[in-house]
C-alpha cells in the first residue's frame, strides 16, 4: 500500500485525471483507510477554488479605466498626426 507522502505527491495528477488505472486504484485504497488524506484532498481542492474565486473578482477600477482610455486616446492622436 502507498503511504501518505506518495499519496500527496500524486494528488495533482489524481485531480487532473492523469494517473493510470492501477495507481489511481491504489490511491483510492489509501483514501479508504486514511481519513487524514481524504481531509487533505478535500482541503487541497477547496484551496484552489477559494483562491481562484477570490482573485478572479478583480475588476479594473473606474479611475484606472479612465486613465487607460485617455492614455490610449492620446497615443492614437499622436499616431494619426504623424
Amino acid at each position, binding site marked *: 500500500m502507498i503511504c501518505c*507522502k506518495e499519496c*500527496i505527491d500524486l494528488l495533482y495528477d489524481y485531480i487532473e485525471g492523469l494517473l493510470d488505472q492501477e495507481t489511481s486504484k491504489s490511491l483510492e485504497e489509501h483514501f479508504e483507510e486514511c481519513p487524514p*488524506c481524504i481531509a487533505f484532498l478535500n*482541503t487541497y*481542492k477547496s484551496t484552489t477554488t477559494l483562491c481562484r*474565486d*477570490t482573485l478572479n473578482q*478583480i475588476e*479594473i477600477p473606474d479611475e484606472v479605466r479612465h486613465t487607460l482610455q485617455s492614455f490610449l486616446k492620446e497615443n492614437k492622436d499622436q499616431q494619426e498626426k504623424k
Partner: protein
Amino acid sequence: MSFTQQKVDKEIEEALVKDFQAGNLDAYDKIVELYQKRIYALSFNLMRNQMDAQDVAQEVLLTLFKKIHTFQGKSAFSSWVYRITLNSSYMKLRSKKKEPKISIDELLPSFNSTGFQQEKIQDWSENTESLLFTNETREIINKAVGLLPEKEKVVFLLRDVEGLSTEKVSEVLDLTIPAVKSRLHRARLFLRKKLSGYFEEYNSQKGET
C-alpha cells in the same frame, strides 16, 4: 467554454491581430477591450497595488501598440501578451524594496519515517461557503498568495486563477511541463497550509458557540 466557442474566439482574435498589423486602429481598440482586464488583474495579483498595476497596464498596452509588427505568430497571441505583462510587472517589482523571502519548504507537509502524515489534518472544506467573499477571508487569501515565492506565484496565477492550460503556462514561462506541475503543486500545498490555520480556527470557534 465549449471547444467550438474557443476555436471561434481564437479565429476572431487572429483576424484582429492581422487587421491591427495592417494598420487598422479599430482592431487595436478591440484587442485592448479583450485584454485590458486580464492584463490589469494579472499585474495587480502579482503586485497588489493599484497604481503599479495601472502603470503596468499602460506600459503593456503601449508595447502592444508599438511592437505588434514583431509578433510573428509562433506562439499564441495571448501567450505573447502574458509574457509582456509579466516582464513589465517584474521590472516594476525589481525597482521596489524587496520583502523578506519566506521558505516554501517549511510549509510543505511533513511525514514520519514510514511516510505517514505527522500533523493532524482537519477537513474544513465543507465550511468555507459562509466565509467565501467576506472581507476577512479575502484578506487572508490575498495575504497568503502574496507570500508565495515569485516562481510559484506566477504559475499559480496563470494556471489556477487565469485558467490557462498547463501547456500554455509552459509556453508563456518557457518552462517544461513537469516544472509547471511541480511549481503549481507546491503553490497549492503552501496555500492550503496557510488557509488551514484560518479555517481550522474558524471551525473550532464555531464549535464552541
